[in-house]
């Protein structure tokens, strides 16, 4: 049963030098609780597609439905985590998470305190409650942003290359942590990345995108190949994982090759 539906959604940007088609008309159905990763080359339009789901860009054509209702501008139903660290520097770790609870109706003070404590524990920031986010590392700031987004209790979680700016070790650590968070929270999630391993590791389903304008060139059911409940850091070494990675890399390389030919022509 489709929970989040994109129907013939496309996006064309008008620029001074002419129209740029970022996303070709595309239909997509995501079920509740599903974690879908959008994988594609940089600048292919996958982020634009996700921003349209978040209400931060208006589709040029088509519509997006959540639970059967057409979606408009941004609101609390679609929480977003950005690539750049969007934790508020003028607030502490706990203050940032409180900012996520602030616009939820009917949350009592004691409930707020419970939620903040739970989320700080969930993202492993116990002991840093009162630190300003300008005083903590990039990886920790990104965990603050994730906790803050979860605090708002969105129906859909949108993540735009959240680990893209982190060093390899921190990224691996946060990927493992996010796998665990996903299992406990069970949120419908779209996760945008250009990292093949990340796209497989975190996904129930991976969509591989073409170069601009974005089209889905592969729709892979990762869950049946690699059961999510059994995944951990070691999953990277499993044959099923390695096969899948190779398969996706081949597709991406082919796509890149076609793209280069088009550039020459």
């Amino acid at each position, binding site marked *: 049963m489709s929970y989040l539906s994109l129907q013939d959604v496309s996006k064309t940007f008008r620029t001074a030098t002419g129209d740029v088609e970022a996303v070709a008309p595309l239909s997509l159905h995501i079920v509740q609780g599903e974690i879908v990763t959008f994988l594609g080359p940089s600048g292919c339009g996958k982020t634009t597609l996700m921003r349209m789901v*978040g*209400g*931060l860009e208006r589709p040029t054509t088509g519509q997006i439905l959540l639970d059967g209702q057409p979606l408009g*501008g*941004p*609101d*609390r139903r*679609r*929480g*977003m985590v*950005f690539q*750049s660290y*969007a934790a*508020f*520097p*003028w607030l502490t770790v706990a203050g940032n998470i409180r*900012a*996520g609870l*602030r*616009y*939820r109706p009917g949350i009592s003070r004691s409930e707020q305190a419970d939620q903040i404590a739970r989320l700080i524990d969930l993202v492993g920031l116990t002991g840093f409650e009162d630190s*300003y*986010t*300008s*005083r903590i590392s990039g990886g920790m700031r990104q965990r603050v*942003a994730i906790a*803050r*987004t979860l*605090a*708002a209790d*969105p129906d859909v979680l*949108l993540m735009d290359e959240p680990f893209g700016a982190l060093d390899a070790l921190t990224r691996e650590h946060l990927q493992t942590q996010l796998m665990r968070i996903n299992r406990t929270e069970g949120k419908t999630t779209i996760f945008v990345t250009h990292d093949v391993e990340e796209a497989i590791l975190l996904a129930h389903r991976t969509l591989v995108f073409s170069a601009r304008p974005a089209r889905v060139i592969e729709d892979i059911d990762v869950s049946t190949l690699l059961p999510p409940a059994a995944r951990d850091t070691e999953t990277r070494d499993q044959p099923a994982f390695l096969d899948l990675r190779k398969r996706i890399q081949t597709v991406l390389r082919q796509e890149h090759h076609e793209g280069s030919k088009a550039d020459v022509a």
Partner: protein
Amino acid sequence: MLSFRTAIPRRQEVTLGVAGLVTFLVVWQLVAVSGWIKPQFLPTPGAVLAAFWRLFTEAGFAGDIAISVGRVWFAFFLAVIIAVPLGLLMSSYRAIGAFFEPFIDFIRYLPVPALVPLLIIWFGVGEASKIAVLWMGTFFQLVLLINEDTKRVPREYIESGLTLGANQWQVMRDIICPAALPNMVDNLRITLGWCWTYLIIAEIVAASSGVGHVIWSLRRFVKTPEVMAGIIAIGIIGLLTDQAFRLLHRRAFVYLDR
């Protein structure tokens, strides 16, 4: 000793600052007593200090300072309470920005002293015209500065707020304002300094009280030490205000990397 773009110890920094001031005073003293320049043009530092004392004890200078400070702060307050919301609205709603920007840009380039005659025709020679001069001098600059400060708030902060469920007003209040506040306070500090420039102009042209008036009326009697003492008083007030703002900035925004 002169290491390129490197920090030096705090003590050395203070010592050098004091040494610079002392050197200035010594050179001044030497030139004044040498007889190259007549004392009515360049009195000694000691004479200026004595004049400073006389201004306070005999001429009631403290009252004039209070009047001038009051004018500056009142006009500045009037400018801030309109400029901050307007600047914020201009950066938040493109239509409002487009409506006001050309007009404000035009007025901003008018030299304030040129407006003084017009403002006296409109408001007379009382308090109102002085407040008007100060307000004209700061308001239009401040609107554009606040507009820039709020424009520079990262898009991710604003979009985070919207996707957390904040409405436009809540985003302005809870995100844009606190995010832009450190820069805003800095710009308020700088604009308040300009207020003093315009105040002296306003008080010289038409006033019967205030620091500018005192300096200008002493000039008629060629009381050079008193004139210099008055100017130095303005410098000291400016320095103290500036330091107070800096202290506020350090205390209020402890999260900033410095």
